[in-house]
C-alpha cells in the first residue's frame, strides 16, 4: 500500500507479541496484521472489548512499544517516517514535531506545578517560553482547571483534575497527530464537553486523531470511524 498525500498515518500489517522471559519465555500474542489509515482532520477510534490490544496499538504508534512486524508511516507533510523501523533519534524528533500522546494517567516529576508541566510540553514542541506559558494558561482555562491550582503540583489534585492537566499537556504541542487513550474517563459532562471542543478545533486545523473512548456519547460525537480491533486478534498457533 502506498500512502497518499491526504494520509497522516498509515498502519500496515502491524503485529505485536510479548515474550515473557521471566515466565519461561511464554509468548503472548497481542495483535496481528493491523492495517488502517488516519487522514488529516480525521478521528479514528479504536473499539472492541477490554484486552483486545487497543492501548497496545496506540503505544506502538507512539514508539513506546516495539512493533514486532509491519509498518507505521507517519507524515510530516512531505515525507513519511516509518515509526516501526525508525531510530530512537527519529522517534524523539517525531514526538517533538509530529505526534502527541495523552495517557490514561498523568505521570510527572513530583513538585512541578501544573502550569510548568503544560508549558514545558509546548516548549518541547518548539514554542518560545512566553508563548508556551500563554498556551498553557489558555488550555488549563479551557479545561476549567481552577486558576488557584495552576501553580501547584498535581500530586494532590483529584483524578479528574490530574487528567485535565494531562490533556492540556498532550494538546500543548499542537501536533499533527494526537493519540488519546481514554482521556475523558474521569471527567464530568462539562469537561468532556471542553475536550470535545478542543478535538474539533484541532481537527479543523488539519490534525488527525487516533483514540480510545469508552464513553459512548463522546465517541459518537468525535469519531469518523470506529475500528474494531477484534478483527486483528492473532490466531493462536496450533
Amino acid at each position, binding site marked *: 500500500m502506498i500512502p497518499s498525500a491526504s494520509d497522516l498515518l498509515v498502519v500496515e500489517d502491524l503485529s505485536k507479541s*510479548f*515474550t515473557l522471559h*521471566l515466565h519461561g519465555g511464554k509468548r503472548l500474542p497481542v495483535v496481528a496484521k493491523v492495517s488502517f489509515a488516519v487522514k488529516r482532520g480525521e478521528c479514528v477510534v479504536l473499539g472492541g472489548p477490554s484486552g483486545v490490544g487497543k492501548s497496545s496499538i496506540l*503505544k506502538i504508534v507512539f*514508539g*513506546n512499544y516495539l512493533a514486532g512486524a509491519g509498518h507505521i508511516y507517519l507524515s510530516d507533510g512531505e515525507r513519511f517516517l516509518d515509526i516501526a523501523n525508525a531510530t530512537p533519534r527519529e522517534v524523539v524528533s517525531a514526538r517533538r514535531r509530529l505526534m502527541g500522546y495523552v495517557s490514561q494517567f498523568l505521570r510527572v516529576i513530583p*513538585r512541578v506545578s501544573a502550569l510548568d508541566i503544560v508549558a*514545558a510540553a509546548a516548549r518541547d514542541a518548539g514554542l518560545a517560553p512566553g508563548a508556551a506559558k500563554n498556551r498553557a494558561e489558555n488550555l488549563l482555562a479551557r479545561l476549567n482547571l481552577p486558576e488557584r491550582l495552576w501553580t501547584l503540583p498535581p500530586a494532590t489534585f483529584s483524578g479528574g483534575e490530574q487528567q485535565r492537566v494531562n490533556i492540556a499537556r498532550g494538546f500543548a504541542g499542537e501536533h499533527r497527530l494526537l493519540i488519546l487513550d481514554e482521556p475523558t474517563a474521569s471527567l464530568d459532562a462539562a469537561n468532556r464537553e471542553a475536550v470535545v471542543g478542543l478535538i474539533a478545533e484541532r481537527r479543523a486545523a488539519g490534525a488527525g486523531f487516533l483514540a480510545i473512548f469508552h464513553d459512548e456519547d463522546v465517541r459518537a460525537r468525535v469519531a469518523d470511524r470506529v475500528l474494531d480491533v477484534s478483527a486483528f486478534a492473532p490466531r493462536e498457533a496450533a
Partner: protein
Amino acid sequence: MNSSLLSAEGLSKRYGAVEACKNISFEIQEGEALAIVGESGSGKTTLLHLIAGLMAPHSGRVSYRGRDGVRRDLAEMSEAQRRALMRADWGFVHQDSTKDLRMNVSAGGNIGERLMALGERHYGRIRASAAEWLARVEIAEDRLDDSPLTYSGGMRQRLQIARNLVTSPRLVFMDEPTGGLDVSVQARLLDLIRGLIAEMGLAVVLVTHDLAVARLLSNRILVMKQGEVIESGLTDRVLDDPQAPYTQLLVSSVLAA
C-alpha cells in the same frame, strides 16, 4: 559522515581478569541525553570514565567533535588539550559533590574558578556570573560568599551543577547526580537538571541505577550487565517494553518506576 558529538567505538577495559567493559560502541548527538543503567558492578561507571577520558581503554577509541568542527581521538590529544576540553566544552557532575567542589573556597569562588580557567579576569563580571548561576540553581544570592561546607547535600549538588554549567559546556557527564540525596530534594533537582538540559541544549551522558531518573532525564538508554550493553534504544520503549531477559528482570524488580 559522522555527525555525532562524541563517538565510542569498540571500547574494552579489564581489571585483572574482570572485563568491566566489553566492546562497547555508541554515539551521542548534540542536545541528546543518554542514560547508562545497570546494577552495581555492571561496568557503567567504568564506561563513563572511559568516554570522559578519565581512564584509558585497553582497546577501542573515543572521538569528540570540537567547536571548530574537527573530530579528534581522545587518546591522541595532549594532556593540555584534554584539560582544556574538560574546562571549556565538558562538565562532570559527580555523585559526591566534594570530589568536584573546593570546600575551602566560597560558593562564588567555586563557580568563578571555571571562568577564570577560561581566561576571564574581570572580577565584577565573574562575580555577576556566579551570582546569576547561583540564582539559576535556586540558591539564595546571600549565600554567594559562604563555603560549601555550610551547604546541605542538595545545595552542594546544585552548586556543583552551577560550577559545571557556567562555562556553557556542550557535553555533561553525570554520575548518579541525585544519588545519596533525600527523596524530597531529588525531585526538585531532577526538574532543575531537566530544565537546564532543555534550555541549554546540552548533550548528557548520565549514569544511574535509578530507572525513574533515567526515564525523566534521558531520551536514549543503554542497559549494561557484566560489562556488556545488552539492550539499547528509546528510553521509555526499553523501560515499558523491554526485550532482553535481563532488562525485563531489572524493570520488573522496581517498585512502580
